[in-house]
């Protein structure tokens, strides 16, 4: 068994983990990244499309290019990287992991959770029918196509208009597959507007809103899906069924932060985001354990992940150095009305400006965000459009904060 001491141990070697580790290394000496895959980069390795880095690097990069910049920096640094290493649990600030050589015990002064998220599957949306081959998540199809040189099928139907589904519609079309259509149960598209335009409209792939797959048909291989229109309560409308012959059904129906390891450490999780409940220094309910990136809440841009991870890395290093003082402030933050969630859930540090990140539950054509402190408005945004697919940010200056309760509302 290998036993090692570190200032900061980062779990996950994707964009969040790499940025957190690099930032932590600016203040402390001994930093480790534990990654279960055989290379760093995380999901960016299979996201070969462009659109990454516009905010962080001020240029448009593909996923692998964005990852490469951090992989190179980690490679040139003193960060100890454990590849092919699976974390089993966190116990008393020790990360217990396993790889080919056996069990590793990595003792840490601070830990950063950066495990990312995974896709929702057929089981979670409960589509009736048989269980043939050919029903897979969009991200798995992306892995097959972009990393493993495998073709997922020939005639493809996509359920869900999340960005991965849209990106895969274009990708498979470019690879010569017949992409028939995209179905979305909601009355609006879930992906970014630019992806609808560039991935579907460019290739004349139809998007059917308020429609969902109501049956999977086929014994060994998928033969067809039945689709139906849905009513305002998202219930299928009898008589609208249509049979679409196809051999592949891709599911792009949402992501879930991957927190199995967090649970072993006793970290409290939010029922809404599925990620840890954090204070504004990104510290979880367990002291010295920080969280960032998609394990905390699902982001739409990797640029935001990087910035959030840098903050977590910085705070973890500060904690490892014992530089954090006992906090006296406790300002709870809550979401109200159409705001689905706000991060952080408490503000414990008012030395610096406080960033509130939030998302609405359904589209609002014209709305205005207001932040209340004990029912007194302390921030008011300008009128704009709000959509669930875009994370919004509000920055509050510390002098606006005092004891009480913060509430974020969109009207």
């Amino acid at each position, binding site marked *: 068994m290998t036993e090692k001491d570190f200032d900061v141990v980062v779990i996950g070697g994707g964009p969040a983990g790499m940025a957190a580790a690099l930032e932590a290394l600016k203040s402390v000496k001994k930093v480790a990244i534990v990654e279960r895959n055989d290379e760093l980069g995380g999901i960016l*390795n299979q996201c*070969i*499309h*462009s*659109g990454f880095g*516009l*905010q962080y690097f001020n240029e*448009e*990069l*593909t*996923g*692998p*290019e964005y*990852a*490469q910049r951090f*992989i*190179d920096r980690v490679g040139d640094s003193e960060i100890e990287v454990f590849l092919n290493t699976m974390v089993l649990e966190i116990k008393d600030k020790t990360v217990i992991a396993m790889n080919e050589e056996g069990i590793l015990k990595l003792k840490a002064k601070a830990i950063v959770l950066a495990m990312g998220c995974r896709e929702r599957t057929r089981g979670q949306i409960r589509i009736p029918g048989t269980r043939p081959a050919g029903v897979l998540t969009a991200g798995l199809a992306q892995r097959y196509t*972009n*990393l*493993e*040189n495998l073709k997922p099928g020939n005639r493809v139907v996509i359920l869900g208009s999340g960005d991965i589904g849209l990106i895969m519609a274009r990708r498979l079309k*470019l*690879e010569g597959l017949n992409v028939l259509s995209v179905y979305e149960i909601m009355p609006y598209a879930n992906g*970014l*507007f*630019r992806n*609808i*335009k*560039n991935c579907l409209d*460019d290739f004349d792939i139809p998007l059917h809103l308020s429609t969902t797959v109501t049956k999977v048909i086929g014994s060994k291989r998928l033969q067809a899906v039945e689709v139906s229109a849905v009513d305002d309560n998202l219930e299928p409308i009898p008589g609208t069924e249509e049979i679409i012959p196809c051999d592949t059904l891709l599911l792009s129906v949402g992501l879930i932060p991957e927190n199995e390891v967090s649970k072993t450490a006793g970290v409290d999780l939010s029922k809404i985001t599925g990620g840890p409940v954090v204070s504004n220094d990104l510290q979880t309910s367990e002291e010295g354990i920080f969280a960032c990136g998609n394990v905390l809440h699902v982001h739409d*841009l990797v*640029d935001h992940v990087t910035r959030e991870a840098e903050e977590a890395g910085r705070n973890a290093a500060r904690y490892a150095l014992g530089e954090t003082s006992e906090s006296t402030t406790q300002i709870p933050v809550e979401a109200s009305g159409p705001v689905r969630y706000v991060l952080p859930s408490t503000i414990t540090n008012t030395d610096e400006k406080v960033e509130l990140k939030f998302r609405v539950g359904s589209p609002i054509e014209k709305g205005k965000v207001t932040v209340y402190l004990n029912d007194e408005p302390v921030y008011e945004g300008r009128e704009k459009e709000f959509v669930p697919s875009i994370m919004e940010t509000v920055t509050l200056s510390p002098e606006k904060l005092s004891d009480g309760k913060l509430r974020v509302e969109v009207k």
Partner: protein
Amino acid sequence: MKTLTMACTTCPASCKLIVKTENGEIVEISGNTCPRGIAFAQKEYTDPERLVTSTVLIEKDGKEFLLPVRTKTPVSKKLVFDVMEDIRKIKVKAPVRVGEVVYENIGNSSCELIACKTVV
């Protein structure tokens, strides 16, 4: 008069542009929040361009893997499938560095195809 809507892809703000045309000429562009939106709408209406991203085979230690690649600059939308046609024929050998040109004049687009990943 015809009205078109398009998403500006210059930055993540993704402004929804509304383009009004008459006899094939743009008469009004609205919805943009910066001047880049105007330039984008004009280009998008006359000769839209797209960055093409895909993969090519790369040989390393006698084994074949996929190397992510892209056109260095956006190419005319009309040439996207020609670019893909050429991409399918390419096979490179490691080592390759990110940004390295793996093919020139891909699909007769006069654009270079570059590696998106370092494989050594």
